[in-house]
């Protein structure tokens, strides 16, 4: 069966520095795949290459059978691959509802529509409210984004990505910087996503990784050290040596 997402020997070099060096990865439809590795391993660079934020020095990205390496970011989103950012990248001056509505309008092909009033888009507004309620952001819908608490901003970061209705969702440390209780809440939302959404996520909290991931790729020094099930990764001596230490004991 054709993988839904395939990275083929992706490399990104800046001069002598090799942030990614021939990284390959395949995701099957509905996969829950974690990307782990120590700081500076090249995980975020890999996500940037997959999603078109960076152009690779060499290698290719395929969505199904289509090679998308040269496609800009927004074209990849249109084909169903969406990402979140490790550091909140939100529309700080818009309110929460406007932010989500913006994405929904874009997905429904209304992003360039200048003659219809936002207030008249009842169906899009209904969808936005539903999503916000699902994320427990309904009470903050009319709050300006910059005034939201950090944890709620992380949820909105996820909400923007979900509003694109992705087939492949790439999450770059979704729970980064939020307390443990809130990060579990965040992963509950992620875990509740249907299997029609394929997940690739970077996460440093090993507890969450081993709970949610079905397969794990370990990146070290811009290369894939190994890939396997959580059990295989936990048992691998090289992984324990370079990264996990006693965390999986």
């Amino acid at each position: 069966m054709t993988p839904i997402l395939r990275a083929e020997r992706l490399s990104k070099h800046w001069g002598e520095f090799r942030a990614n060096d021939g990284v390959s990865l395949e995701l099957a439809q509905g996969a829950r795949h974690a990307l782990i590795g120590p700081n500076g391993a090249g995980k975020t660079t890999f996500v940037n290459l997959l999603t078109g934020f960076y152009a690779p020095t060499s290698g290719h990205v395929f969505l199904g059978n289509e090679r998308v390496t040269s496609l800009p970011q927004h074209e990849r989103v249109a084909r169903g691959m969406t990402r979140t950012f490790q550091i909140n990248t939100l529309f700080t001056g818009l309110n929460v509802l406007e932010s989500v509505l913006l994405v929904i309008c874009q997905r429904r092909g209304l992003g360039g529509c200048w003659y219809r009033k936002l207030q008249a888009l009842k169906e899009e507004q209904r969808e936005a409210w539903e999503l916000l309620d699902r994320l427990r952001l309904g009470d903050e819908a009319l709050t300006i984004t910059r005034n939201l608490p950090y944890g709620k901003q992380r949820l909105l970061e996820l909400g923007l990505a979900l509003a694109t209705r992705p087939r492949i969702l790439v999450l770059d440390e979704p729970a980064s910087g939020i307390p443990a209780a809130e990060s579990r809440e965040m992963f509950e939302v992620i875990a509740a996503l249907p299997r029609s959404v394929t997940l690739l996520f970077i996460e440093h909290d090993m507890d969450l990784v081993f709970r949610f991931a079905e397969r794990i790729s370990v990146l070290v020094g811009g290369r894939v050290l190994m890939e396997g099930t959580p059990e295989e990764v936990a048992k691998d001596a090289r992984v324990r040596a370079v990264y996990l230490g006693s965390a999986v004991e």
Partner: protein
Amino acid sequence: MNGSWRVRLEAAFWLLPCAAYFVFPDYLVLGSQVLTAALFVVSLDLILGYAGIVSLGHAAFFGIGAYTAGLLAVYGWGEPVTGLILAGALAASVGYATSFLVVGGEGLTRLMVTLGIGFLFHEAANQASSITGGMDGLSGVSMWKLLGLWRFDLSGKTAYVYSAVVLFLVFLLARRLVASPFGLSLQAIRENERRMPAIGAPVQRRLVSIYTLSAALAGIAGALTSQTTEFVGLESLSFERSASALIMLVLGGTGRLYGALVGTCMFMLLQHVFSDINPAYWQFWLGLLVALIAFFAPGGVLGSTTRWLDAMSFRFRRGSGGPA
């Protein structure tokens, strides 16, 4: 502020130019200058206030519109409405062609590119003096009757009404645009251009669209000015005009549309008053006012007023014991 109050306030605002027509019949020429300048500033607000493109060369499109309408009239086509449309179309074409240079860069690069475009057209018009009149300006602009009915008279009645109607129609268009999904996407680009591609939005296409439209509206403003004054000066393409428009917008408040109107009225009326008091030093007082407003009311007059009203309404709600 709820919807019905907003509509009433807007209706009251638009009654002001109607009232001015009857209350200040001796100032209709100045009034039409204010209205055409306001139209130009509205066009700037669309790119600066909504899409976040700072331009110091927007007068290029104003001037192209002014010269187009002026030259049409000089060479035998003095019909105002079609002249306005053709001027807008030509300014839009030039706006579209140059938009790729502008939106391709960021921040200071964009600013410099717009400045360069402004200088380029100004100097081109200066060099082509056989067509544009160069430093002496284009004279001999003779307009036909508006809609075949109203002559452009010296008292400025026709010019005033014509300018007010065009401004109102363009404002309605801009108002609808900023309240649409397209308008929201422009604001999102202003807030975070980097995130937009990651939600599937083609940033460049959106910016090219609004830049082109803004150029068209600036061209219409220029054409309106040349038709109502029956003269086109090289000043219509000048850096000073671009910079003045920017000041007017910042005075009123960016990203509000009405800020463009309020800022233009303030600037031009104060300019008129200060230059009456002292023709040599009017810029000193205006400069002082601009500096004070920038310092004490960074959102412009309208932005600061809105913030103050919001704060007052919050205080009243707190004071009444109801939920804040």
